[in-house]
């Protein structure tokens, strides 16, 4: 059992607060992705769980042990670093065996585990090489193999794919997902790449400014952002936001049209819709086309609605040109609302 519980953890670096009182539980065998822009505190949180950083306050529990005072080696974790940290002076074999040697496992067990993880990561032909003779992708595989060889309760990954080129990243992403699902460890994975997060995670914790803004499964995070930030961060292109003013009970005026909405205790809220959740039709939001970007399957149209930007993904068969006037109809069940004061979703 390796459930991770983080209780009221905060971290200050001098006057800077990297992490405001974070509470979260990562279930046994769950793949949790910490997602956020750089400086949001996700790496700090990971390093606190690893024991490479001491929290200014709070507790970290792995399974039924409180670990925040323990050194990293007593926490039952393994880690994959952003720059791989594959030791240059050791062969691939010795790199993978490093943790096993530290744990003083018998040679036969070391051999067995190195062989197994090397096969798993398809690097069995590289075991005698040094890291200087490996490509970035191969080093990445060594770093993952080294973590898996520990057969840890928890694997921590700090942006492990960010130094790979786009194609390799795609390949490794799929492979990681398979390997980690099979290893049945609890995984915490830090990334700033939303696509990576969506594709890997059982659950995503979106972080911003040292807070966890939302923790939910990928589809929930995408469909029902708990906060404006989540909607504006996840999705490419992100969610559209338009100002809405009260038109009556549960009625709001958006771009001149009255639409049904939530019962919010304010006169002004925000209407939000994802670019792919609008279609062309009668009586929609009147929009003037500014930029047209064909993306292959779809065409991304950036339009102007009363001075606000609204982006829509339309079928690429449609011919649109800058200056055209479109009528964009939002799919009613995909419309979301946000409170501009608290920045939180209004339901």
């Amino acid at each position, binding site marked *: 059992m390796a459930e991770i519980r983080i209780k009221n953890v905060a971290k200050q670096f001098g006057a800077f607060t990297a992490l405001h009182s974070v509470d979260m539980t990562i279930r046994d065998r769950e793949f949790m992705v910490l997602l956020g822009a750089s400086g949001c505190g996700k790496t700090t949180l990971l390093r606190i769980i690893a024991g*490479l950083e001491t929290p200014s306050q709070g507790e970290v529990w792995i399974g039924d042990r409180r670990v925040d005072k323990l050194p*990293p*080696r007593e926490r039952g974790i393994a*880690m994959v*670093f952003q720059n791989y940290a594959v*030791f240059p002076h050791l062969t691939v074999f010795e790199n993978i065996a490093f943790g096993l040697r530290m*744990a003083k496992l018998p040679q036969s067990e070391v051999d067995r585990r190195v062989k197994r993880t090397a096969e798993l990561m398809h690097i069995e032909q590289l075991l005698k090489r040094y890291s200087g*003779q490996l490509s970035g992708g191969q080093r990445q595989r060594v770093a993952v193999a080294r973590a898996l060889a520990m057969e840890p309760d928890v694997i921590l990954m700090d942006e492990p794919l960010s130094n790979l080129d786009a194609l390799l990243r795609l390949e490794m992403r799929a492979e990681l997902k398979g390997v980690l699902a099979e290893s049945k460890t609890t995984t915490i994975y830090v990334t700033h790449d939303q696509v990576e997060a969506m594709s890997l995670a059982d659950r995503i914790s979106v972080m911003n400014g040292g807070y966890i803004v939302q923790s939910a499964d990928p589809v929930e995070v995408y469909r029902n952002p708990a906060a404006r930030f989540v909607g504006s961060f996840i999705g490419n292109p992100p969610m559209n936001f338009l100002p809405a003013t009260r038109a009556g009970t549960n009625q709001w005026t958006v771009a001149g049209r009255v639409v049904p909405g939530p019962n919010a205790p304010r006169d002004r809220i925000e209407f939000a819709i994802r670019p792919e959740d609008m279609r062309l039709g009668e009586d929609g939001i009147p929009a003037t086309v500014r930029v047209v970007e064909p993306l292959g399957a779809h065409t991304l149209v950036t339009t102007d609605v009363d001075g606000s930007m609204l982006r829509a993904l339309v079928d690429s068969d449609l011919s649109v040109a800058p200056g055209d006037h479109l009528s964009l109809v939002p799919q009613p069940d995909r419309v979301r609302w946000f409170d501009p004061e608290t920045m939180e979703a209004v339901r």
Partner: protein
Amino acid sequence: MPRLLPYLLLLPATAFLCVFFLYPFVLVAMESVTREGSYSLDNFQRMVSHWKFGTAMRNTLLLAAVVVPVQLALSLAMASVVTKLSTGRSTLLYIFAIPLGISDLAAGLIWLAIFEQTGFLNSALYGLGVIEQPVLFLSYQNPMVIFAAIALAEIWRATAIMMVILVAGMGLIPKEYGEAAEVFGATAWQRFRKVTLPMLKPSLQTALILRVILAFEVFAVVIALGGTNFPVLMEETFQWQFTLQDRGVAAAYAMVILGISVAFTILILRLLHVPKGARV
């Protein structure tokens, strides 16, 4: 033209070295194998058969064998501490580096002021009532004390140069390696042994070669503290050149020192060799 430019710019320095270093070096080498106008190994024979040669050789090697390992251990410890510091690092480096700014003769004299009959050590011991009258520490009857005093002065004087090199080398090792080792179960000592030390090899090479060569050339500190009671190779070179006025034997001594230095340099390069591909 731009391809030749670097060589052109290096030409003055190269020419300078050839004229003022390589040429005299060849002359000395020739001199060591010349006796009364003809080539012979007479000079080496004379050098070896002199009673002081064995002692000088033994003293020099012994001194290096004691001083360099102690300095290596000390400089590694100091560099490790300095590297960990977040504040006051440069101040500490400056303090450690003070002895580097002092000439070796001056360093010898400082330690002479401590150990001589009217020195600080005697006054202190006398003041504390440990001894009843000043002791002659550095007499020919106490070769071990002379040896210890010279070793101490050398350690005090020249450890910082190794430390400075090692601090620079440790700064080049990315922090992630230490963290990875920590996560994968290494204790502080294991991290030092299994990660820092192997990755420090290039800097260790530089520091050791520099120190070992200088250890074989030890001279002024020995003269200041031991006089002629503690013969070393460099001192013998000096004696043959100026006191005994035999340039041939002095040249032979110089060649022996060179030979030892080259041999140890090669040895260190071999021992601390980092295979290609295993470099950081």
